[in-house]
């Protein structure tokens, strides 16, 4: 029976020949990732069962939201994690110095492998679909994998998104993702697997694909996923000793919807405060005065985002009265950005470069005061996400964020770069 990549991965993880959309299955995840702040949802309840972690080699713990600990509560949280990992034989704990955003580490450390099933207590698990991994967000339900080694899933219907064309100058994958998700919407996307194909996807870089798959979460898709290229397979093989067997959609697999887009015609877009799908053209929001700009997160803290921001800010100073914070997604990204001189470029422009963490995205260091406005490459913009309930968050590309920091108001990088 023809199947999509998502159906094949779930079938294999469930030990079944085939599965169909809507089917309830039990399956074994290949990897299970828990971030520092995931402890309250998972740790105490799991420990109350009084059992060892099943196959602790599958489990990865990442310090990312609160690294290094900035208060006593979080210091205790980290300590608790270290003790938990030692007790249960979990060796893959990304402690301070080796920390990074879980979704980024998952790709860079080879935890997300083509053809595998990954679960993650953090919302943007979808990011790891970029390598052809069925990566799904969980929460307390992850306890099932830790305690008995399996979990339940309902096989999602799939949507096929075909992308072709080339990006115009000043337009990024973030803008493409914003365009597509606004167009699909939650009524179509929710609970589905969104599969990206086509020439534009085949030539895209991994950081670009991670941003694209990440954004599938905005329509409440279960996963965003890509059939992995040869380059992706080579990338993952370099980063893991664990053998893996990639899976690919059959040509006659069934999709409940097919969409096709030419990215050549796409323009930079911004999400207005309150809803990541409240999409606006730059012209609609240009001129809005900002107080903070943030470059970072699992959707916007890649090496390519740092290159883009540095291309705008190199040799310049950000606007007076604006503060800009830049947080690379991982230590590897941090080192790469450092070696390319990007951190220096940003620092010279008046940007505060932080350690590699989730940073200001979830309301960590870089909190907004009442009535302040931020433009950010991060993932969420609901009221109060970065601090005060009366602050506002616009979401956009690294180019847009950097150009806005330069101008002191939301600006189009294409006019700055010209």
């Amino acid at each position, binding site marked *: 029976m023809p199947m999509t990549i998502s159906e094949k991965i779930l079938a294999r993880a469930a030990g079944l020949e085939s599965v169909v959309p809507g089917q*309830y*299955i*039990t399956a074994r995840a290949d990897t299970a990732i828990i971030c520092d702040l995931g402890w*309250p*949802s998972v740790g105490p*309840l799991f420990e*109350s*069962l*009084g*059992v060892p972690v099943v196959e602790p080699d599958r489990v990865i713990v990442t310090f990312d939201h609160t690294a290094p600990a900035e208060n006593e*509560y979080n210091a205790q949280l980290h300590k608790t994690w270290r003790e938990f990992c030692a007790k249960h034989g979990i060796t893959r704990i990304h402690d301070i110095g080796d920390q990074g955003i879980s979704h980024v580490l998952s790709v860079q450390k080879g935890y997300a492998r083509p053809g595998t099933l990954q679960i993650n207590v953090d*919302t943007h698990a979808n990011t790891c679909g970029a390598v052809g991994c069925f990566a799904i*967000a*969980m*929460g*307390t*339900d992850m*306890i*099932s994998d830790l*305690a*008995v080694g399996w979990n*339940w899933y*309902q096989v*999602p219907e799939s949507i096929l998104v075909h992308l072709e064309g080339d990006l115009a100058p000043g337009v990024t994958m973030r803008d493409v993702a914003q365009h597509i998700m606004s167009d699909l919407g*939650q*009524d179509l996307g*929710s*609970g589905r697997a969104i599969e990206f194909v086509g020439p534009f996807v085949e030539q895209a870089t991994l950081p670009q694909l991670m941003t694209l798959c990440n954004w599938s979460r905005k329509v*409440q898709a*279960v996963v965003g996923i890509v059939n992995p290229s040869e380059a992706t397979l080579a990338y993952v093989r370099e980063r893991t000793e664990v053998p893996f067997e990639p899976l690919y959609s059959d040509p006659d697999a069934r999709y409940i919807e097919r969409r096709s887009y030419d990215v050549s015609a796409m323009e930079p877009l911004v999400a207005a405060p309150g809803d990541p799908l409240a999409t606006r053209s730059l012209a609609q929001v240009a001129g809005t005065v900002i107080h903070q700009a943030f470059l970072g997160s699992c959707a916007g803290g890649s090496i390519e985002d740092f290159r883009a921001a540095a291309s705008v800010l190199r040799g310049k100073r950000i606007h007076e009265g604006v503060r800009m914070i830049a947080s690379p997604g991982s230590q590897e990204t941090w080192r790469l950005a450092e070696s390319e001189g990007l951190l220096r470029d940003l620092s010279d422009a008046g940007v505060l470069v932080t350690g590699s963490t989730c940073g200001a995205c979830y*309301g960590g260091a870089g909190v907004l005061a009442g009535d302040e406005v931020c433009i950010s490459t991060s993932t*969420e913009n*609901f*009221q*109060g*996400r970065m601090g005060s309930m009366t602050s506002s968050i616009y979401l956009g590309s690294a180019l847009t964020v950097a150009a806005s920091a330069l101008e002191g108001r939301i600006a189009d990088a294409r006019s700055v770069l010209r």
Partner: protein
Amino acid sequence: MSAVFERSGRVWTFGDEVSIEYISPLRYMFNPDGRGQNCLKYLDPVFAAAQKQGDLIVAGTQFGQGPGHDHAILAIREAGIEGVVAASFAPQFFRHAIVHGLLVAECPGVLDLVGAGEQLTMDFATGRGRNQSRGTELRARVPEGPAAQIIEAGGLMPFLRAQVAAQPG
């Protein structure tokens, strides 16, 4: 498992795309004080202030959308709500509801079938419901297979305790 999961109660209605941030702001993830009393306060202060033990929520599409934190489900339970019937649920909210034993049923167009303040009886095991106020029937989709087993056990933790106890050694 029928009957055990039949619930009857007064209905509170909410519209489409109710985000978990409106059900229970992020701060309650870390500090549960007042979580139940403040559940859905920003959308309906009357709901928040009311005595609603045993009541039901009826909502539109994508109930519980947004980040996948599960404190919003705990907030609903602590508010006294027994079950939610929505036109559709955000997928992660649906999973977490099963984890925490909040009864859920999916019924497209339910807001046309049940109104605020009406009396609804819903069997969350079979998906058969009755609007007692109007004398009309409705059919909803409910979790199946392993998800239904977890509900039957009363949530994930009781389910896992039984699983662990049954394991050899």
